[in-house]
């Protein structure tokens, strides 16, 4: 079951991506109709978003059709040649690393205000460098030093030279 879903996703990934984009354009087209304007005219604040979304929907529909055709061809070819879904362990680990990287950036932004720029940045830098570095070649002590020095230097430089009011958070800076 899981295999067949993965195969379908692999064959029809283009069609699927275009369908998702089509839905997004459709959502914004519907939102465009509800933009509040005081004086209705043919070319008001709604006009441009409506044109763009309509244009986007048509293009996405073309891409969905092209994606289905391409997917059918790929499906026939792979069934004929008996090629199965082939995801290498490296690719799996890369996908996990990408997701974890995104999560760590989101957590970083959430923590900047309560913890302050220096602590949040140091934590983020350490986690991100650990995530990206190769297993077996990691040097956590060096990474801690880099994370702390870079965060503190950034804070002091931008705060004192460019008067950027980066959040100080827990530290009495």
């Amino acid at each position, binding site marked *: 079951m899981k295999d067949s879903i993965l195969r379908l996703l692999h064959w029809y990934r283009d069609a699927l991506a275009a369908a998702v984009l089509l839905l997004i354009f459709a959502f914004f087209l519907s939102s465009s109709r509800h*933009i509040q304007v005081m004086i209705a005219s043919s070319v008001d*604040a709604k006009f441009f978003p409506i044109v763009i979304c309509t244009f986007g929907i048509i293009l996405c529909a073309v891409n969905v059709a092209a994606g289905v055709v391409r997917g059918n061809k790929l499906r026939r070819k792979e069934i004929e040649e008996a090629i199965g879904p082939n995801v290498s362990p490296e*690719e799996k680990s890369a996908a996990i690393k990408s997701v974890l990287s995104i999560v760590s*950036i989101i957590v970083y932004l959430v923590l900047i205000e309560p913890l302050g720029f220096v602590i949040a940045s140091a934590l983020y830098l350490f986690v991100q460098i650990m995530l990206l570095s190769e297993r077996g070649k990691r040097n956590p002590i060096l990474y801690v030093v880099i994370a702390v020095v870079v965060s503190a230097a950034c804070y002091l430089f931008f705060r004192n030279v460019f008067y950027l009011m980066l959040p100080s958070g827990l530290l009495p800076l």
Partner: protein
Amino acid sequence: MQLFLSSLAQIMTPMILLYILLGVVMGLVFGAIPGLTGTMAIALCLPLTFGMEPTMAFALLIALYIGGISGGLVSAILINIPGTPSSVATTFDGAPMARNGQAGKALGAGTFYSLVGNIFGIAVMIFVAPMLAQVALKFGVYEYTAVSLFALSLVSGLAGKSVTKGLVSCAVGMLLGCFGAAPIDGYARFTFGISGLEAGFASVPALVGLYALKELLAEAKPSGKVNILDVDTHIKGLGFSKKEFVCQIPNMIRSALIGAWIGILPGIGGATANIMAYGIAKKRSKYPEKFGTGIIDGVVASETANNATIGGAMIPLLTLGIPGDAVTAILLGTFTIHGLQPGPLFFSQNYDLIYTIFAAMIVASVVTFLVQLFGMRGFIKVLKLPKHILLPIVIVLCVVGSFGVNNRLFDAWVLIIFGLIGYIMSKFDYPLAPIILGFILGPITETYMRRGLQLSKGSFLPFLTRPISGVFIVLTVVFIALTIISSIRKSKRAEATNL
């Protein structure tokens, strides 16, 4: 001429020269490291320029721009990976030259012809821009609308393998540009009750996010170890002989013309210019079979053309206020931050600043040449910097830069939102350049179009009946039609080959 010389004297102060040097070095470093681009360096430094005098701000940003484009050749030659998309064609002959023991010659030629390309592009800009500004003074809202639409059509058609995907990317960018207050009447659009969205997405975090996050996440992919060729990179003189220089003159002039012309056309830029110049140099050569084996001709064509695009790309920005690529879009933002509005009127009223920009470009080109020629060993060392440490630091700097735009965290979230959009769309082969141009050109087009429609009381006819505007509308339609036809032909040919 006198104005130009006095502008040159104006920027010859120690402080401005220091900013130019810093900009050039940082641009070269960002350009040399694959994955980091000059665009990213400019976007990162933009918040630093908020408090500067316009002259100083533009000197720094222009030095970053020129350094960023020129830096790509180091990694293209030594590790066979272009540092920036503008140096793709440099790998074709530069890397084989390095493998054949001619790394010094390739680096020397690349450095010298980058300078030639830069100076040629700037010369074209100095001569063409004032003339175009005179013509553009006659432009009204209809003409501006038509030119913006033409720019949008060029972007979408040439940005990717699939025309429809390029156009969808462009539509996504234009839709993102619609968030916040509408132009002319200021009605709120797509704010969903979020106060931060009332002014729309700020362009700096949006542009940085689209590129930076994609590179960070790409680093998670398993990739082969970067092997820097252990060869003699010492450059004797300029690396090539007088005879070789004379032989390369036609190639140099042709590539410079291609680069400057492509630079003027919005949305295409150095990434296309270097490949096109290389292709034409090969076609016109008496020995096309030698291309790709490591001959100087390939490096000359690519590096002259990509640098000549810089001067060309500045022309539509300065004379029409229409940016042609991501860098000029950021420069447009810099003008706005300093309360300036580029365009024909600005051009005729601010000769001082315009000529200072010209002078800064020339000085930055010469500084880039000298820094590359004498500091090549340093840039080779830069290639060895571990990206798993460098990229997270760049992300932190991007967050600081985004925060600095309005002193609020909301813009850092914009960085992440655009980063995710860019990453997901590039995963599904949707090109990113049209998103940026759609995002920047969309609001410009809307403003002019709505002003035009207000003037014409809702009629679209003046857009077609006014001569310049009509010509651009026809060109837009013809260009889109030609792109679609050529893409259909290409896919049919590909199908036939598969069968």
